[in-house]
């Protein structure tokens, strides 16, 4: 009778064993036959939070000089070759993931472990996100816009107070920094900010397809249990309101003009930019007076320099804790879209038990220069250097139909893709400025006209052109963890600013 061997193998050791073992079913030069008698699997921690990781290990029992190598599989989420489980994304209740370890030597022998996966629980740093039809009385159906509810106060006040106001349907934007409020929404009088000469300070913020204009004011911002005191914010005013829009505040060619004139024009009551930077403009507005901040005496507005501390600020960087970035976790959305979708805006990265980086790969981006905030996407073997991950963009916006391998644009709407084979399953590889390439990222595109011709407001397969670049919009966020780390605030996994995400 041969002796019974027991080998407890941590997942991380398995690869080494597998590499050295060669995978043969017999071993020992004497011709002894080894056998596998059983495989058992377990993971820790268990239960595991949605999107977070649990390290699984296998106990392989056998006879002779058997191989302890196993291969891993999971019914949900993702598991690495070394047994690191990334839990699937759920945003309510709990689910389970069945993890299977199969003997590399004898594929008929396997063990399973059923892991309970729990949704992110309510906490001081967790704000619920909803993707829905949009603010009250919107004249059209909102499309793929993530909203949170915030409370703002005249500085020095705390809710509940007549000097505070709760605002719903505030767009969560990882593509910009700073809070901007449609002026008609405001019921409280936020104190305006003046420049160093005592003149009112106004701001022109240009987007890809329009601009917003209006005064800088100061507010205390409350989001769930987090507070950002004395934050410069922008109040977006109609073109007809004084001061008038200066000529240097320019509509992009073919743009929508002033997008901050009303809730209907803006598509939200306000926008909270929780992106990569501490200020909306940064060092670029401390000298040279670009067309961004304006000093507005009664005689008219002129571009002016503004010190960093007076610039419209990323509210997250002004929190006393959980201030180094955010995690967006959005539920999966099926092909065809869904009426609504939900998720969480979690403040901080690695600052609490609910916002660990886990298996997310970090893609660092330059802090300054003409490539600030962008990384590289490799698609069909070609590098595209202008990539961003932006929750404020409503679709996968990438390349153009003239570029090989991209779906054709829709005949009735050249801002949308209408693939002939739907869904069109595509892949790309992202690469940060640290040179680190992530695993292959998968995305699918469906007929955009058909998608928008429904009552749905959340779409995981909506795509359109963006010549020469990739803008990974909200569809990218569904079913994965996406982190944005703020410059100069320190964060695990790399040097901010960076994006990070998990799951394929």
């Amino acid at each position, binding site marked *: 009778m041969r002796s019974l061997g027991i080998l407890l193998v941590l997942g991380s050791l398995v690869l080494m064993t597998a590499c050295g073992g060669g995978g043969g079913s017999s071993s020992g030069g004497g011709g002894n036959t080894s056998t596998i008698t059983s495989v058992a699997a377990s993971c820790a921690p268990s239960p595991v939070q949605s999107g977070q990781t649990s390290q699984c290990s296998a106990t392989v029992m056998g006879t002779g000089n058997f191989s302890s190598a196993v291969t891993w599989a999971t019914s949900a989420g993702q598991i690495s070759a070394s047994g690191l489980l990334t839990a699937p994304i759920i945003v309510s209740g709990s689910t389970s993931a069945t993890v299977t370890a199969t003997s590399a030597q004898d594929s008929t022998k396997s063990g399973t472990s059923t892991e309970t996966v729990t949704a992110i629980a309510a906490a001081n740093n967790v704000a619920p996100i909803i993707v829905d039809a949009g603010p009250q009385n919107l004249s*059209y*159906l909102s*499309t793929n816009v993530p909203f949170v509810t915030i409370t703002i106060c005249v500085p020095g006040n705390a809710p509940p107070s007549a000097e505070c106001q709760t605002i719903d349907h505030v767009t969560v934007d990882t*593509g*910009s*920094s700073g809070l901007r409020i449609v002026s008609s929404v405001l019921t409280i009088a936020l104190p305006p900010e003046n420049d160093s000469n005592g003149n009112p300070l106004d701001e022109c913020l*240009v*987007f*890809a*397809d329009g601009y917003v204009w209006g005064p800088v004011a100061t507010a205390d911002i409350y989001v769930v249990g987090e507070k950002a005191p004395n934050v410069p914010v922008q109040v977006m005013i109609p073109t007809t309101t004084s001061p008038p829009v200066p000529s*240097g505040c*320019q509509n*992009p*060619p*073919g*743009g929508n003009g002033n997008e901050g004139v009303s809730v209907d024009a803006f*598509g939200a009551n306000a926008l909270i*930019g929780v*992106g*990569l*930077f501490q200020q*909306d*403009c*940064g060092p*670029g507005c401390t000298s*040279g007076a*670009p*067309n*961004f901040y304006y000093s507005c005496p009664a005689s008219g507005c002129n571009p002016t320099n503004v010190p960093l501390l007076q610039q419209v600020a990323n509210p997250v960087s002004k929190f006393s804790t959980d201030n180094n970035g955010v995690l967006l976790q959005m539920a999966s959305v099926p092909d065809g879209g869904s009426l609504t979708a939900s998720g969480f805006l979690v403040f901080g990265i690695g600052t609490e038990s609910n916002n660990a980086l886990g298996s997310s790969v970090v893609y660092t981006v330059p802090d300054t*220069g*003409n*490539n*600030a*905030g*962008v990384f590289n996407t490799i698609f069909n073997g070609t590098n595209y*250097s*202008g990539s*961003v991950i*932006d929750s*404020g*963009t*409503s*679709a996968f*916006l990438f390349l*153009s139909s*003239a570029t090989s391998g991209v779906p054709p644009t829709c005949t*009735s*709407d*050249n*801002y949308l893709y209408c693939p002939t084979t739907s869904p069109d399953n595509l892949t790309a590889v992202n690469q940060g400025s640290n040179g680190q390439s992530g695993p292959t990222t998968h995305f699918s595109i469906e007929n955009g006209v058909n998608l*928008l*011709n429904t009552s749905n407001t959340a779409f995981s397969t909506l795509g*359109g*052109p*963006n*010549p*020469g*670049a990739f*803008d990974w*919009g909200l569809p990218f966020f569904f079913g994965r963890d996406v982190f944005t780390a703020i410059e100069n605030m320190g964060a695990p996994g790399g040097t901010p600013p960076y994006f990070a995400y998990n799951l394929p």
Partner: protein
Amino acid sequence: MPCIRNPFAILILLLPFPASAVLGDTAASVLDDQARMKGTLRSVDNRTYVMHEITSSTGTVVREFVSPQGAVFGVAWEGQFPPDLQQLLGPYYEQAQQVQASAQQTDSQQPRRRRGPIVIDTPGLVLYETGHARNFRGQAYIPQLVPQGVQATDIH
């Protein structure tokens, strides 16, 4: 990240003499842009066209592409702040507005709003612009003026 294709000859010009450079105009207009942007100018002749690159005082880079016939057939830009596109595009700025206005009328059946890059692809004008916090980039060209052998992707 300056991209120099086929730098057969690189001329460094630092001559602040005025003219008026807009898309579709003559090469002389490039220098007006340089003066207006208070920028530095670098010119690259790659035989099928000359590329003039102006870096403004705010760091924004504008590249103007001039055909052997002397026409500015394309422009491209990138930087934290978009350049004065009304000036750079000249009459084509207004044309872009008109293209979008008529497109919106066609789309009026569709009760949705979109936010994203500008994409104009017409026989007389191709224009793209995309922008995010601290990063704007775009290109515009007039297809009829693009010299033979020059690809749209060269205009960047």
